[in-house]
């Protein structure tokens, strides 16, 4: 067992699970989506991205790319949320929440690819 692999795997999966947790629920209902969960997803995704720095292999590059996509989507979601509540003073119900959650849904897709890549790579190694 390799500790680095454990940490790496944990962060990749945690990015996915947190993202999933935030995403699930009625798309425009703020009660189903907590802001701290979005913040945690963003932080974990940032860490996962940093962990992927410096891998020169092709699969490493794709890994980094998926994380980049997820981080960009989550940053967009956070900015939309911030702008709507603090600058535009709009109610979170409805349109705003739907946008934030759908953006995080995009990140979820990227995180899913990341997890799939990791599993695929692991299976190839052991065989």
């Amino acid at each position: 067992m390799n500790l680095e692999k454990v940490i790496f795997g944990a962060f990749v999966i945690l990015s996915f699970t947190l993202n999933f947790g935030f995403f699930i629920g009625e798309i425009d209902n703020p009660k189903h989506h907590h802001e701290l969960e979005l913040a945690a997803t963003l932080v974990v995704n940032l860490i996962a991205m940093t962990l992927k720095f410096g891998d020169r292999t092709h699969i490493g590059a794709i890994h980094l790319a998926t994380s980049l996509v997820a981080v960009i989507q989550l940053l967009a979601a956070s900015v939309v949320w911030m702008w709507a509540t603090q600058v535009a003073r709009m109610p979170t119900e409805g349109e705003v929440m739907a946008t934030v959650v759908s953006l995080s849904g995009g990140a979820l897709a990227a995180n899913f690819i990341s997890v799939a890549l990791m599993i695929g790579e692991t299976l190839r190694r052991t065989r």
Partner: protein
Amino acid sequence: MTDILILLLRRLRTPIITLIVVYAIAVIGLALMPGVDPEGRPWRMTLFDAFYVMSYTATTIGFGEVPYPYSYAQRLWMTVSIYLTVIGWAYTLGSVFGLARHPAFRAALGRHRFEARVRRMTDPFFIVCGYGQSGRKLVAALDEIGFATVVLETDPERARAHLVLDTRQPSALLIADARGPDILEAAGIRRPNCAGVVALTSGDEINQSIAIGARVLSREVQVLARVKSPGARETLEAIGDVFVVNPFETFAVNLGMALAQPDVLRLEDWLSGVPGAKPPPRIEAPRGHWVIAGYGRFGHSVAAALGAAGLSHKAIDIDRSHCGEEGILGSALAEEVLRKAGIEEAAGIVAATDVDANNLAIVNTARRLKRRLFVVIRQNLAGNRSLIEAARADMEFVQSVVMTHESVQLLTTPLLNRFLLLARRQNGVWAVGVAGRIRDTVGDQVPHTWAIECDASLLGVRHALEELPEPPLALSHLLMDPDDRLRALKAVPLLLLSNGRDVLLPDEHTPLRPGDRILFAGEAGVEGLQRRTLADDGAIDYLRTGRDPPRTWLGRWLMARQDAAASGRTA
């Protein structure tokens, strides 16, 4: 660049993650702390507010308590966060700066910049390995002619001189050992515009391995190596296709010519001097007894040349291992040692020690003992120029000058070198004749020399040499002004290389064939006109026939009609 970026990111992984974690704890914690707004209602910061506050606090900018004065819980959390984030930043920035100053990182960055500079070179360039006295001179000389240079040097101290170098062509330097094939490749040896590799480092073995490496990496480039031992020369000659220059031998050959063929030597000096400069004086070394002070490798080369000329000579050296059987052991600075070597009846002296001040002193002492002496002096360090000038010697040996001269000639005008080698087999009368012709053409100054190739890819050459119109293209056409054929160009054809055959001083009426190469000496600017002639079929037709050919389709049609009418009338 990606390599460096990857290196950077990999090394900074821990600091970046630390920073992310610290920020996450501080921001989320601050947003959770209970606070009170000015109306006394319970209030909590949003995540964005907390991130904003942390951003200016962590970077020690500090705008104060925004948007409302904080509660004690918030202040408590802020206190913890300030220390956490400042430490996090200090750690990250420390790592970044530490990495930026790391020698390995700087070397990687330097290498990357160097490779980018080499890639940007579009004109022909030479790779010069070794940036000592000769290397510096050669880079300056190649720059003067219009070649870019790539310099490889292992010693950072020597490489520093390159920083303040002012060149017209681009010049890049890398501190690296040129023996590594990857270094030569980084220096662009495989690039199509790489013209040659010159190995001028201090050691024979190093130069030898650079030359071999260069030959193996690229069959096309010219390779030149400076070697001072016969063994290294043999090795390199066995590999073949490598120019080997021993500056000592080159000078000894010149001395031999000064003894036997002073007029040929003068012609050689004249043709290989700096264009536009005054012609060099005729040097005639006297026959008689010679004294050689300093019997190292240079002294031995000189002795061999004197021996070949059949002259008696006596060598002096303070080192027993140099002296051998035939030499005199002692310091040439002492009068009695010079007397013992026969200075009083000598015709010439060679001051060949490796200390410039001693050489000057030896010359002065020798002159005191014998009035009329032919003096050959060796200069070791570039900085001692004034010392050597004070000796007012008849011939000077400066290794870097000989080396630069020889390298430039071999690499940039190989045809001139070929001509000079052939000239050595001629007699003095011939040489005086050639010098006279050159003087009649360009006046009393060093002429430009250049080679013209009848390359069939040039439009004019293809027209004249493949369609074979009458009268055929001859050498004389290259000596006419393409704008006015009655005006002769100021140039002398020195050598025609046709089908592997050398023709010295070719006749003007010699017809040209594809692939012929001709060496000219003459005025500046003539080369450009000749190249224009060869690239333009119209100009060639004008020079051959004296009639400007029509350049347009309509003109040609009218001309053909006129010709037909004219022939019809005569018929």
